[in-house]
């Protein structure tokens, strides 16, 4: 759309990022009557789903197995039916507070129209996450051509039609790495093996089964890539089995290859939030939020993979919807303001984190708690206590570090209380 340089752009809700979280947020905010703007730096909305051509998306949302582009397309169609200003090829360059905290925020954006200023009552941050790169893992040797993150390889193959290598080694067993092992094989490359430093794959079982086992690609657990060989182009990698962080002597081998694909973790992308300095959670690496996905900065909401790395897009959309709706209510002063109090949630026992980190009380209905365990376990008992009193208990089977779990917490258990501390603990049971 054409930006008017004379008039300051003004919105109730500005969504930053047009992936699954941002699209859902913009739709939900618009449905609540808010004037909504969505900022997207790429040419088309849809985010990373555009390159995820495999199926398995939307089982919870649409009760169908969709591919990534299909899932994104459905949301883009929905968005297109609403009066939302979608600004593509637009970069957000700065965020500042605009007057007092309830007046909202002042943004600077850059696109083909030049530099513009945008005033917004609320912000929904939906920037997604980034892949860890070869500079963030310790591998000896040079960094010649032929080293890609799994997402880069996916972009090259699925969107641009280039094969990044003919003989590949994959480091890390995240889901995108597993999926790329299959894609590379189908497109005619040979995948020499997948090396994972941990004792179990970090991706889903389904992907281990259908992306590695189906093609006979060897998975080497407790193993890693020690060194990249080659100066101009990757020529080989040195691999080894690891024990207590040290390579086991007679397992050190050289694997000839022309590319190394990395699938070594995802980090929520929140650099844009730095100027506002919201409270962050060092485990999720996203901001701390309450059940409305509101951060510690009034009127700033966070959702999707920018909030924490999800394994299902359905949950990403759901958090976007919650954030978008809450932002619209906040912008029209219907959110209940600053009444009541906040309870703090903490994760304990075999839990790496729990989300949301805060609950605004009093409130009605149920809140989905999302959590991840540190260590896989055949059985675990989740106990939620409020000020020492048990308010919810549930036993879980076959907990996997790779799989996020979810449990609904009915807020009526907090009757009469507007705060306090809530401990969420996963303990071993009956073993």
């Amino acid at each position, binding site marked *: 759309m054409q930006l008017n340089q004379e008039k300051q752009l003004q919105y109730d809700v500005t969504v930053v990022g047009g992936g699954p979280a941002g699209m859902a947020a913009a739709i939900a905010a618009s449905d609540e009557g808010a004037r909504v703007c969505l900022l997207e730096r790429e*040419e088309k909305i849809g985010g990373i789903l555009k390159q995820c051509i495999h199926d398995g998306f939307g089982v919870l949302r649409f009760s169908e197995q969709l591919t990534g582009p299909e899932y994104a397309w459905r949301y883009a169609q929905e968005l297109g039916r609403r009066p939302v200003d979608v600004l593509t090829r637009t970069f957000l360059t700065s965020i500042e507070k605009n007057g007092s905290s309830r007046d909202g925020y002042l943004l600077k954006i850059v696109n083909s129209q030049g530099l513009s200023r945008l005033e917004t009552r609320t912000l929904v941050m939906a920037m997604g996450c980034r892949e860890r790169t070869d500079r963030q893992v310790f591998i000896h040797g040079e960094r010649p051509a032929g080293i890609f993150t799994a997402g880069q390889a996916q972009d090259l193959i699925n969107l641009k039609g280039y094969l990044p290598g003919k003989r590949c080694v994959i480091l890390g067993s995240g889901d995108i790495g597993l999926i790329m092992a299959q894609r590379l094989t189908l497109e005619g490359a040979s995948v020499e093996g997948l090396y994972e430093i941990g004792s179990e794959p970090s991706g889903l*079982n389904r992907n281990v089964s259908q992306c590695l086992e189906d093609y006979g690609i060897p998975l080497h657990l407790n193993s890693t890539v020690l060194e990249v060989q080659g100066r101009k182009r990757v020529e080989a990698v040195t691999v080894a089995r690891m024990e207590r962080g040290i390579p086991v002597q007679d397992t050190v081998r050289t694997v000839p290859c022309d590319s190394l694909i990395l699938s070594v973790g995802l980090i929520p992308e929140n650099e844009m939030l730095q100027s506002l300095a919201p409270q962050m959670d060092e485990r999720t690496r996203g901001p701390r939020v309450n059940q409305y996905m509101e951060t510690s900065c009034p009127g700033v909401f966070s959702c999707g993979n920018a909030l924490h790395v999800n394994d299902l897009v359905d949950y990403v959309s759901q958090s976007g919807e919650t954030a978008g709706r809450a932002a619209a209510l906040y912008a029209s002063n219907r959110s209940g303001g600053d009444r009541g109090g906040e309870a703090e949630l903490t994760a304990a026992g075999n839990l790496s984190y729990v989300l949301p980190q805060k609950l605004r009380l009093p409130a009605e209905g149920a809140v989905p708690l999302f959590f991840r365990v540190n260590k896989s376990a055949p059985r675990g008992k989740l106990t939620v206590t409020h000020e020492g009193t048990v308010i919810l208990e549930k036993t879980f089977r076959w907990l996997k570090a790779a799989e996020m779990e979810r449990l609904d917490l009915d807020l009526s258990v907090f009757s009469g209380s507007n705060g306090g501390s809530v401990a969420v603990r996963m303990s071993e049971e009956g073993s």
Partner: protein
Amino acid sequence: MITEQKNITCIACPRGCRLELIPGAEGSEAQIRGYECPKGLAYGQREAVEALRILTSTVKTCSAEMPRLPVRLSEPVPLDRFREFMDLINSFLAVEDCKPGDVLVRDFGMPGVNLQATGELHYEN
């Protein structure tokens, strides 16, 4: 039906049991080992008869903005025929506008299996 032993990870639940599929003598039903529940047994038996999967990939286009169009097969097909299907997919060129769900080729490589677009392709006149 499988003709040699296969070791697979069960995907019926997050537990991920290791299943052994052992071929039966002369066309009789395969023996499944390592399952811990009826769902696992059923999954193993299905995999022993024929491993069917949905194949997704991309096809060439003539568009500079969108050089590849994502596609899928409408039905699960035997895993051991993926290579053939990939060759067919790689020889297809998308020359017309389409949107997700549109059938690009009917009876594609197998009766009842269609090649479907999963993305939107729009040529500028």
